[in-house]
């Protein structure tokens, strides 16, 4: 089984997975209203990190002056350091590979490069500095696949472990927000002026969020503590439009069919819940509902975590997998906060209250610009 042996979430709700899990169980949201922030003329709602706290934590790390690290690099390093510690493995070992999932990396440096070298906005450069911080000499992989980046990175884990000789793969998802990203989403009229309401009939758009999240994977026959394993993953393109999702949910549907066909005897009745992308844009949520409907999954419990963390871009697929794994292992499905009155193109069952489950599987699904869609099927992997 390819399973997680250590994870971390660094978000405004906490610096470890446990802190984040406790916060979301208490119904806390990191979303806040901002005006006159990032020098932007229009106000917005987002989940932004407290950078003083980040600096404080980063100052406690050893070797933190190897480089003048950027915001993105700092949260990635902090997140990975905690995950490696939990996993109890040496990140510098030659059988460890780093995979970084980010959509925009250090793009804020285009406004002002400060003292950084001209190569610093390049995503490969950040990935190099992050893996080198840990003394890892392997060339890291950078996946930049818009909103699905995190799940696209998870999709690489199986071949890397099974075919390419790596014993451990550390998937780090991270993005920070800036004038660049917020103004772009505003120009797309995709941001809600208020807190987002995923799958709500009256949803008005998404909120963005800053976070880093890490999962370390390895392959093993048995485990000493309860964790999650990857059963299957799939990516599919809609080949329809670069920014609008397919109305018939073609690509997402295909990824769901693909993961359910990956092994014999996989049954929807074993799925505890589907953690959707649920951005709270009209088109995304409708499209996801259509995919679930076409799968015949109208009665399955679906939730979205955007009301807690916002849409954390390159971190989303990883962060939401970590929270979902806690949900699965604790048998406790989180409600979709922000949503009162679900209403989507197809009728689905959106969790509005906490639900209990003892089923063994969950599906993480996600879609994004470029017509990309991903689904990953996870299972409980219990201690013997």
């Amino acid at each position: 089984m390819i399973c997680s042996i250590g994870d971390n979430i660094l978000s405004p709700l906490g610096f470890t997975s446990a802190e984040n899990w406790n916060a979301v169980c208490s119904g806390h949201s990191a979303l806040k209203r901002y005006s006159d922030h990032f020098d932007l003329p229009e106000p917005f709602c987002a989940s932004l990190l407290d950078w003083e706290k980040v600096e404080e934590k980063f100052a406690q790390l050893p070797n933190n002056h190897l480089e003048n690290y950027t915001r993105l690099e700092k949260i990635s390093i902090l997140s990975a350091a905690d995950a490696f510690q939990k996993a109890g493995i040496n990140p510098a070992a030659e059988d460890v590979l780093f995979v970084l999932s980010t959509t925009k990396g250090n793009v804020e440096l285009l406004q002002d490069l400060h003292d950084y070298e001209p190569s610093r906005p390049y995503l490969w450069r950040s990935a190099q500095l992050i893996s080198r911080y840990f003394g890892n000499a392997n060339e890291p992989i950078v996946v930049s696949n818009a909103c699905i980046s995190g799940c696209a990175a998870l999709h690489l884990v199986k071949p890397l472990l099974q075919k390419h000789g790596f014993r451990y793969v550390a998937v780090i998802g991270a993005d920070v927000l800036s004038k660049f990203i917020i103004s772009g989403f505003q120009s797309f009229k995709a941001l809600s002026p208020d807190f987002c309401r995923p799958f709500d009939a009256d949803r008005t758009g998404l909120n963005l969020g800053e976070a880093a999240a890490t999962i370390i994977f390895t392959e093993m026959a048995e485990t000493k503590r309860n964790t999650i394993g990857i059963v299957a993953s799939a990516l599919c393109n809609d080949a329809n439009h670069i920014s609008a999702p397919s109305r018939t949910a073609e690509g997402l549907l295909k990824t769901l069919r693909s993961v359910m066909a990956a092994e014999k005897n996989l049954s929807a009745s074993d799925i505890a819940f589907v953690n959707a992308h649920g951005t709270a844009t009209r088109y995304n949520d409708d499209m996801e509902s259509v995919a679930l409907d076409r799968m015949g999954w109208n009665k399955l419990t679906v939730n979205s975590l955007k009301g807690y963390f916002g849409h954390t871009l390159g971190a989303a697929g990883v962060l939401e997998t970590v929270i979902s794994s806690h949900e699965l292992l604790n048998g406790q499905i989180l409600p979709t906060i922000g949503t009162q009155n679900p209403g989507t193109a197809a009728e689905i069952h959106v969790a509005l209250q906490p639900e209990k489950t003892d089923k063994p599987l969950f599906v993480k699904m996600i879609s994004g610009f470029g017509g990309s869609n991903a689904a990953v099927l996870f299972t409980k992997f219990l201690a013997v």
Partner: protein
Amino acid sequence: MDQLIEELKKEIIEVLNLEDKKPEDIDENAPLFGGETGLDSIDALELIVMMEKNYGIKLQNAAEGKEIFKSVRTMAEYIKEHRTK
């Protein structure tokens, strides 16, 4: 009015990169979207920016664009009434 229509045609070609089109190819009474010109949702958003930049008109709600961008003529009529520059 006719002058504004001609001006708009040129601006639309420029901001939407319709390099294969000339102003005379655009019929000011024909639907801008879903018709011959083949414009999409991103083009509509770009026209909203153009209205703000060139005519000082701020649309808060993208849905308002639907009526305004019916044709070059409806666009010109809206601009004539609401322009601040």
